[in-house]
């Protein structure tokens, strides 16, 4: 498939504007003396963004735009948390969670007759 001009325009403008969205706040705010409550807010908003991503990944069905409870994902996340609290090793925690997720997902497909 060839790329038409509109796709190239989206790429060019999108790249410049996205860079500006990243660069402007960090270059401007890093030179300011911020009040305590603003610094606290910035620390909190960083943590809150991560939690927001996790909540959407785990509990939101993007196709149906509704809440979901994916037991396989929840179980795998439980493994990630347990391994991370126990070992404090990032790659091991992620690997364990992905493996558990993959095995359970495969097992469920097999049980449902979907095969491998």
């Amino acid at each position, binding site marked *: *498939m060839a790329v038409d001009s509109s796709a190239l325009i989206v790429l060019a403008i*999108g790249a410049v504007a996205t860079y500006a969205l*990243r660069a402007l706040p960090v270059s401007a705010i*890093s030179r300011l003396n911020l009040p305590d409550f603003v610094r606290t807010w910035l620390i909190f908003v960083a943590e809150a963004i991560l939690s927001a991503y996790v909540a959407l990944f785990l509990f939101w069905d993007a196709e149906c735009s509704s809440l979901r409870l994916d037991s396989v994902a929840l179980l795998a996340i439980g493994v*990630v948390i347990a391994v991370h609290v126990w070992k404090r090793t990032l790659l091991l925690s992620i690997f364990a969670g992905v493996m558990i997720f993959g095995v359970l997902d495969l097992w469920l497909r097999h049980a449902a007759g979907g095969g491998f």
Partner: protein
Amino acid sequence: MTRRRGWEGLGDGLRDGISLGLTYFVFAWSIGHHAVVVLGFPPAYISAQSFLLFSAQGQIAALQVLSTGGGAAFAILLLLFINMRFMLISAALAPHLRTASMLQILLTAHVIGNGTMALAMRRFDSTGGQAGYLFGVGVVGFLGYSIGTTAGAYLGGALPEYLAGPAIFALPAFLVTAVVGAMTSGAGLLLALALLSGILTLATAWIAGTNVALMAGPTIAATLCTYWKHGRR
């Protein structure tokens, strides 16, 4: 005068970034494959888009608009709206980069993302801001993502379909480790913040969609917790 700390922490950042780079690589593979096979874009376009934008959700949204015949203006507006979250992430990192030169900041800006922030904030808790560390982590994450998308776009069919689900799971698993790291090193207020942010994000997603939710949920939760900490004095 504030002492410049140059590229201090760069080596540690490159080393710590490996976990992020691998996670992004696995996650991005499925995005590249999806963009080519399902949405019908050429692999070269997807690769260029990843290197220039470094924004999974924004990229997918723009591609979906274009693939259904939507106009360029709408695709750009949607892309920018989704990527406004980078303003929050950059703003959150900014106070830690007071000792960085403007050149370092401008170079680092392109590789700022949620994963980069997650690793850097944990580090900065103990060392204070280090532009070198942030750049190191960001570059490895950026390369993992961009190369992963490119590989998925060109070689996506090489990956069996039953591995796509576990691949997508890699990113939430990574982010969970970041949240757990904050919980176990921080106070109960961070746990409350995480729960509040999750609940508000889901509620907002139900009302106004996920793109609005990713901005509104964390912003409201952070504001309420800031008030709880400072406003009651």
